[in-house]
C-alpha cells in the first residue's frame, strides 16, 4: 500500500513536471475561481455575522402617552413583562431620558436648557428573548404591544434590519450561483489539462497496457494530479484571500476603527476553509476523472 502510494505520487509528480506550464496555468485558474467564490463567502459571512450582532442588540421601545399617571405604570410594566417573547422591560422615566440625553450631548448640554423633563415621554425599553430577535417574531411581539392603549408609539429598527438581511440574502444567492458556474469552469479546465497530460503520456500508457499494469496503476496517478491541482489552487486562493483580508484591515481609516471595534471583520472560520479546500480537491479529482473516462480506454 505504501509502495503504491509512493508509486502514484512519483508518477503524478513526473507528469506534472513534464507538463509544467499547463499545470501552472490550471492551478492559477482554479485559484482565481476559488478566490472569487471565497471572497463572496467571506463577505456574506461577515455581513451575516454583523446582522446577528445587530439583531442581538435589537430593542423595542414603547413610548407611553405623555401624562400617563405613575400609578398606571407599575401594573403596565408587569403586564408587559408577561408578554410572550419579552425578556426584560426597563422603565425609562422622563428624568432618565433627560439624563441620557445630557450625557450623550456632553459639552453641548446647554442645548437642553429650558426643556422640561416632563415634556419628554416616558418609555419602556423592551429586550426580547433570544429566539424572538428576528423579523417575524418581532412583528408578533410588536403586534401585542400595539393592543395596549397606553403606548403612544412603538419604535424598533426593523426596517433597517429587513433591508440589510435582504442584502445578505442577495449576496448569498450570488455566491451560490457564482459558485455553480466556477464549479463547472474548474471541472472543465482540469479535465482539459489532464487530457493533455494523458495524451502526452500516450506511449507510456500503451506500454503499461502491454505489460499488464492494472487500471489503478494507470489511472490513479492522473486522479492524483487533478486532486493536487485542485488542492493547490484552493490553498493559493485561501492564502490570497487571507493576505487581502489582512491588507484591508491595515488600511481601515481611523475614523471607522472605533465603530468597527464593536463589529469585528472576521476571516473565514477553519471549517469553511476546510470545506473550500475539500471542494477544490474534489473538483480537481472530478475533472481528472472526466478526462480519463474520455481518453483513457482500456485496450
Amino acid at each position, binding site marked *: 500500500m505504501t*509502495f*503504491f502510494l509512493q508509486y502514484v505520487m512519483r508518477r503524478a509528480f513526473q507528469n506534472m513536471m513534464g507538463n509544467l506550464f499547463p499545470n501552472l496555468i490550471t492551478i492559477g485558474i482554479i485559484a482565481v475561481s476559488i478566490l472569487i467564490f471565497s471572497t463572496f463567502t467571506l463577505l456574506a459571512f461577515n455581513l451575516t455575522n454583523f446582522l446577528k450582532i445587530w439583531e442581538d442588540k435589537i430593542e423595542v421601545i414603547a413610548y407611553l402617552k405623555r401624562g400617563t399617571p405613575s400609578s398606571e405604570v407599575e401594573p403596565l410594566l408587569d403586564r408587559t413583562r408577561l408578554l410572550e417573547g419579552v425578556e426584560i422591560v426597563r422603565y425609562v422615566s422622563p428624568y432618565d431620558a433627560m439624563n441620557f440625553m445630557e450625557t450623550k450631548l456632553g459639552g453641548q448640554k446647554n442645548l437642553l436648557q429650558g426643556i422640561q423633563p416632563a415634556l419628554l415621554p416616558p418609555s419602556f425599553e423592551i429586550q426580547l428573548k433570544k429566539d424572538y430577535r428576528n423579523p417575524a417574531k418581532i412583528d408578533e411581539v410588536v403586534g401585542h404591544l400595539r393592543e395596549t392603549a397606553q403606548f403612544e408609539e412603538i419604535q424598533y429598527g426593523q426596517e433597517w434590519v429587513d433591508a440589510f438581511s435582504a442584502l445578505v440574502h442577495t449576496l448569498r444567492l450570488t455566491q451560490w450561483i457564482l459558485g455553480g458556474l466556477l464549479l463547472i469552469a474548474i471541472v472543465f479546465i482540469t479535465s482539459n489539462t489532464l487530457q493533455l497530460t494523458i495524451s502526452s503520456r500516450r506511449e*507510456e500508457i500503451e506500454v503499461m*497496457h*502491454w*505489460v*499488464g*499494469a*492494472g487500471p489503478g496503476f494507470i489511472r490513479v496517478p492522473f486522479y492524483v494530479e487533478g486532486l493536487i491541482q485542485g488542492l493547490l489552487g484552493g490553498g493559493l486562493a485561501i492564502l490570497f484571500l487571507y493576505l487581502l483580508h489582512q491588507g484591508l484591515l491595515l488600511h481601515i481609516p481611523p475614523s471607522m476603527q472605533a465603530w468597527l471595534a464593536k463589529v469585528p471583520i472576521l476571516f473565514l472560520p477553519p471549517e469553511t476553509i476546510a470545506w473550500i479546500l475539500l471542494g477544490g480537491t474534489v473538483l480537481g479529482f472530478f475533472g481528472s476523472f472526466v478526462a480519463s473516462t474520455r481518453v483513457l480506454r482500456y485496450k
Partner: protein
Amino acid sequence: MVHVFKTYPSQISALSDITLEISSGEFTFVAGPSGSGKSTLLRILSCAEKPTRGEVVVDGVQITHPDFTKIHQLRRRMGIVSQDFKLLRDRTVNENVAFALEVTGHTRREAKGKASDMLRRIGLKEREDAPILALSAGEQQRVAIARAMVNSPSLILADEPTGNLDAKTTLDVMGIFSDLNHQGTTIVFATQFTGLIKRFPYRLIPILNGQVSDGKKVDTDEVREVKAGE
C-alpha cells in the same frame, strides 16, 4: 483457438477460419510471408485485437467471452515483443525494462535490479544507462525482448523479435528463448525468416493469406519456402 476470423474495418480479411492449439511449454514458430496475418494472430492472442468471429482460449481463460475484462491479469503472465518495439524514447535502457515491473507493483529498487540482470543476460549491460534513441535498431529490439522477459512470463508472444538482429545476436537471442523454453515457458514466435526455422527443430505453424496452410491447398513458391523448414 477455434475457427477464428479477423476482418479489419477496411474489409481486409487478415485471418480466416484459423483453428489451432498450442500446448503449454511448447515452442512454436508462426511463419509466413509479409501480410499473411502473423502479427494479427499474435495480437489476438495478446488481447490487443478482438477476433471478428471465433473463440480464443489463452492460459485457460476464454478471452473472447463477452464478460472477460481482466486483460491486465492475463497480460502479466505474458511477455509481448511487438514488431515495433514500443520502447519509451525519453527513458534509458534500464528504465524501459524496469518500467514493466514498476507499473505492475514492484518497488523501484527491485525493478532496477531485475532489469539489470535481464540486460546482462541479453548482452546490453554496458548500454544500461544509455537513452533508447542512442541504440541501434538491433539493440532496441533486444531491449524490447528484455522487457518482455523481465517479469518471468509463462507465455512469450514474440513478433519477429530477430527481425533487426545480425546472425550472431539472432543466435544469442534464440539461445535465450530456447533456455526459457527449457525452463517451461511457452513461446510463440512469428517470423518470415526461414533460416531460423531450418535451424531450430520446433513446431511450425505456416500461415498464408490468413489461413493455416497445410501445403496442399495452396502451392506457391512462398509456401514451399515456408515449408522448407520442416
